């Protein structure tokens, strides 16, 4: 029990409400939500506690808690809340808050604004899209309309430069966020920072791999929320499967792109020469398959949201949509690009390339502030929470 009083921030509740915690004040702390939550446990008890923190204006307590990220937004809590306080919405709102707080200073207020104002979000998307558009309009090479010369139209190394610059910035933002989150969620926990840190090194590593495997690769937790759907058909339709396809599709494309960049001969050389690369070529195959997974997953997720078939999708935010829609667009423009290329339609190919690159650019820029952010923070949170439990029990 800490003895020094923490100062309450009376404006915090309003901030969380603006971020989507629509009815957080209605909560009377009965704990029903925590009791029905399939993921809450004795050691990491939520969502009631997070709501109490919010009501009491204890924002640092929120940022210091990895529990925020353990929620899968299944909506069971909101369904059973006797006061209709929508606890699941508060969990999501607090995440938005945490994302904006973990981000580096300038990005922090940027993200806060996109959450709070739809108009701001749209305008920024348009402005962000203008960057690659202007770059392409300014830097493109000769437009050969008789045959498709994609990298004559837009030299490949430009793509690389822009990609690397953007990648470094975004990676920086992400690492900053992860670092800040690690710092906040582990401060005050002995064994994490300062003394005793290294003594548990091996254990940390073990927990880390376990987390990586269980929570990231096969996403066990998400499956836990669909306990009732055990048949394979149901599984294919489940949220878990949708999520897995998006995740692995994304990873696959990331690998394809990185390999394409690292081993230029594999992909870019033949392309520059306008040569045909067989679909069976391993890296290409990986790219095509990953793209398929991604398009499937994103489509399903969007359909789910449109149908509002799940309670969780009844309150969606611009930033929730943005990531899915951009993913789908990236996939669709990518495939269209390939088709245009093979049917040898030069102008269409150049146009589609432009659109595709804009979409990918946008996707990267907004990634740390959209739904994608959880891909960063959740594994770290799970790991920290595991390690915490381990420390507490030993």
């Amino acid at each position, binding site marked *: *029990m*800490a*003895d*020094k*009083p*923490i*100062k*309450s921030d*009376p404006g915090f*509740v309003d901030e969380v409400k603006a971020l989507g915690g629509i*009815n957080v*004040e*209605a*909560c*009377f*702390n009965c704990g029903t939500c925590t009791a029905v939550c399939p993921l809450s446990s004795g050691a990491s008890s939520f969502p*009631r*506690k997070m709501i*109490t*923190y919010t*009501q*009491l*204006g*204890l924002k640092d*307590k929120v940022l210091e808690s990895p529990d925020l990220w353990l929620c899968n937004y299944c909506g069971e809590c909101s369904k059973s809340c006797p*006061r209709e306080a929508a606890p699941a919405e508060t969990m999501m709102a607090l995440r938005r808050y945490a994302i904006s707080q973990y981000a580096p200073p300038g990005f922090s207020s940027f993200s806060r604004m996109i959450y709070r104002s739809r108009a701001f979000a749209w305008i920024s998307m348009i402005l962000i899209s203008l960057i690659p558009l202007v770059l392409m309009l300014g830097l493109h090479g000769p437009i050969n309309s008789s045959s498709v010369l994609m990298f004559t139209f837009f030299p490949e190394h430009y793509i690389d430069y822009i990609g690397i610059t953007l990648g470094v910035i975004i990676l920086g933002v992400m690492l900053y966020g992860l670092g800040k989150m690690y710092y906040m969620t582990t401060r005050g926990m002995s064994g994490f920072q300062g003394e005793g840190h290294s003594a548990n090194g091996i254990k940390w590593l073990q927990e880390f791999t376990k987390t990586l495997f269980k929570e990231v690769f096969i996403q066990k937790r998400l499956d836990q929320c669909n306990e009732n759907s055990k048949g394979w058909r149901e599984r294919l339709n489940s949220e878990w499967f949708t999520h897995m396809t998006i995740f692995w599709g994304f990873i696959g494309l990331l690998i394809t792109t990185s390999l394409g960049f690292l081993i230029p001969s594999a992909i870019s050389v033949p392309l520059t020469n306008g040569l045909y690369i067989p679909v069976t070529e391993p890296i290409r195959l990986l790219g095509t398959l990953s793209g398929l997974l991604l398009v499937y997953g994103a489509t399903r997720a969007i359909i789910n949201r449109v149908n509002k078939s799940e309670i969780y999708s009844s309150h969606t935010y611009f930033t929730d949509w943005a990531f899915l829609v951009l993913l789908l667009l990236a996939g669709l423009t990518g495939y269209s690009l390939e088709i245009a290329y093979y049917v040898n339609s030069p102008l269409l190919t150049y146009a589609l390339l432009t659109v595709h690159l804009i979409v990918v650019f946008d996707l990267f820029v907004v990634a740390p502030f959209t739904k994608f952010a959880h891909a960063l923070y959740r594994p770290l949170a799970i790991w920290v929470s595991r390690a915490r439990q381990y420390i507490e029990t030993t």
Partner: protein
Amino acid sequence: MKCRQEFKLTEGKKERIGVYVCHCGGNISDYVDVKKVVEEIKKGEPNAIIVKDLMFDCADASQSEMIEDIKAQKLDRVVVAACSPKLHEATFRNMAKRADLNPYMLYHADIREQSSWAHEGDMEGATSKALAHVRAAIAYVKSAEPLEKIKSETTHSVLIIGGGIAGLRAAIDLSRMGVNVMLVERSPALGGHVAELGEIYPYYTSGPEIVKGLVDELKGRDNVAIYTNATVMSYSGYLGKFEVKVKVTHRQPGSEYSEITLHVGSIIVATGFDTYRPPKGEYGYGTVKGVVTLPDLVKALGDGSKELIYEGRRIREMAFIYCVGSRQKPPEDGGHANLYCSRYCCNAATSQALTIHRRFNNVKIYHLYRDMRTYGRNELMYEDAAKGGSIFIRFDEDHPPLVAEDGDRCRVTFWSSLIENQPVDILVDLVVLVTGMEPRQNEELNRTLSLPAGSDGFYKEIHPKLRPVETNITGVLISGTAQAPRDVRETLSSASAAAAKAASFVLKNELELDPFVAFVNPQACEAHQECIKECPYGAIELVEELGKKARVTSAKCKGCGACVAVCPTGAIQLKGYTNMEIKSMIEELAR
């Protein structure tokens, strides 16, 4: 006043007794051998002309059978051995009346609660106990005397002490029923606390408007007399005939005050409550600027201003601290105030919070409570307040919040077990102590009326469920918050209940009272006056004209028997419980 004071013994005469032993379905006969009781009585009691067992003594057919027996066999005494007399004594006394037998020549012996139910599984024991009870009852009726109810004339007027909403409501109800009402209010104005409140729940009606509505309704009535600046000085008499002296203070110079005498049949005490005043330092009261009580806040809100400003301070954040002066530990455990829940305060505080949310933008309200007791419909206010932006935080009795000064604001530190008792500081501009209700300071009146009070200090009714507005001074009733902490709604219903009860007394020309009162045998009385000292109701006096003998005013006597116990010569006894009757029963039981 007609009542019999002489006492005759009916020795030597041959009684004709009927005995009816009840099975009560199986309630009695499962553990009491009813047939055996009947046989034993038949064998041992030659004066028992009729001894029967019946399935249900109280059934209409059984009662008709008894009436026929009484008439045909010329029975002059009856014993009913059945359930508790609390349940059916009146039933059987009425039956006796219908058979032209004096109802007090019937004794109702309890062989269910006392025998079969008390000795389940012990047939033999239960049976012998039941038999003993029936024998004692026979012994009683053998020495019983016919008694008559005491009759007393009544005055068709009621005195109401206290002109708060309870007094006003009772006055209206009585006046409408045609009863003359005299209302005595100590202060210069009517309405009590409610007259000083702003918006009050339910429906956020204004306190002064409620009072105005009640007072307007009284104004036009010619059977109502209202005395303000008036107090009760002394009272005497009994139900139906009280004489009350009232002192009315005048404002005009010259005549300081006048004294009037009122004659009434019943009195309603509606003197209300006091609000708890925290001692200096309790939650910073009187030591930290910005710490006020709920009544202070309600008054401040009454001015209709656009902004919430208290003593020059604009209020942006404020905190209520609940249960101040209520629900405390007993003094031996370190508590200093009242143990009970004051009942109105959770509701009043949430209702004021709602008013603030509605009237002023952006005032953040924290409610530090121990348990929210917004019972019944008031629960909706609790929910509305939360949805309207109030934050409710529970604290533990052992870990109350601390209030301290912080610049020109107040710092409230609290601990909540929901977040592992991590202390939290909130900075607020105003701290409102949600103070409870206390029994009204009323020494003079208490001395005059000597009404009984409960351990909490509020006036006490005879029985909370069976006789909820009566006190053990017959004819003196209590209502409103003089009796217990209550809100307006509950106060008004209890006032109407007291009014109805008072009307039921005074609207009859003659009152009938139970005949079980003390009486004096003048031959034996030696004027020791022990009884006069002992009687808690002042029912006995020494009468010179009778040659210095004690005399009982039957209407005042409650039949408690205190006098009987102290009389050195046995001159004073209780009707229906004479020494002879009691002694014969004891002898029979001890046989």
